[in-house]
């Protein structure tokens, strides 16, 4: 007589485990639910980036392909170096 109750109990635990598993699957390890970032949050984050890196907005538009004086000197040094021969 007691056997169906044991099986029902095991089934109940399995279903409870399944529900817990489902909740666990949909949450971060720290317990917070997954949430897609809002458009405003993404925009705010982007505008803050230059200040975090301590770069002026005008600096970002500078042509980075033009070599500096020290870089030019280094390039020259490499050009004049003779290859090693045996």
């Amino acid at each position, binding site marked *: 007589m007691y*056997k*169906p109750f*044991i*099986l029902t109990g*095991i*089934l109940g635990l*399995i279903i409870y*485990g*399944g529900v817990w*598993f*489902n909740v666990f*699957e949909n949450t971060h390890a720290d317990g917070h639910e997954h949430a897609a970032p809002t458009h405003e949050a993404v925009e705010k984050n982007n505008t803050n980036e230059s200040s975090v890196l301590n770069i002026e907005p005008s600096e970002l538009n500078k042509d980075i392909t033009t070599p500096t004086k020290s870089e030019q000197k280094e390039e020259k040094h490499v050009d004049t170096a003779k290859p090693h021969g045996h």
Partner: protein
Amino acid sequence: MIHKRSLKEKTIDYLLYIATFSGINFIAGSVVHALDYSLYNYILLFVGSVLTPSALLIRELMLNKNPINRDFWGSFGINLVLSISAGCITGGIIHLGENSLFSWYLVISGFIMSFATAMLYKTKPFLPAVLDYILWIAMFSGMSFISGSVVHAANDWFNNFLLIAFGAILTPAAILLRNKLILGKQTALGKNFLILLVLSLGVSGVTGGIIHFTKNMSYATILIVGGFILSYLAALHKNDGSLAELRSR
């Protein structure tokens, strides 16, 4: 003298067989795909829950002419729990590549449920009962590995190929050992194993096609039509007894 069945008897037996095992496959399939949260899945669960008991009732009343008593519902409940749990074990193994965590959950919970049922309602001493359980699960799993792999072949053939080979060895070996060690009877593996193999492939093609219909409709249609033809042709070759005897506990 062995009674040779007519075409009508074979067809009724086949329809009841496919209804019984399709229902079990629908329930197990809807549990395995539970994380899809689709309406189609809930419908399958409902259809399976109605189909299997109805087909078994009709078999008992019409074919076997047995009265429906408490023992019938008792053995029906045990077989249903065992079959669905075994379906969850094999379904979990087949779907390991998709969602490994949930698949392991299915495998472990299916094992706990089936083992607890088999042990609570055992009619033999502990060790023979455990051996019987292992061999029955092995027989069921081998068949499900083959049929499940065919159903998933359109998505991932090469990973499934190993499961097909494993299932093809596991089932006949389990039937052979079970007949010899548990039932103590002569092993007539050849024809009956072939009928069971083709029948299971066909039934699983039908049910697997229906379960996965929304995922790949063209492949599912081929599986359903091909499965019906294959399983019916196999059913016609069973001249004596009933198809359900091939995979009874």
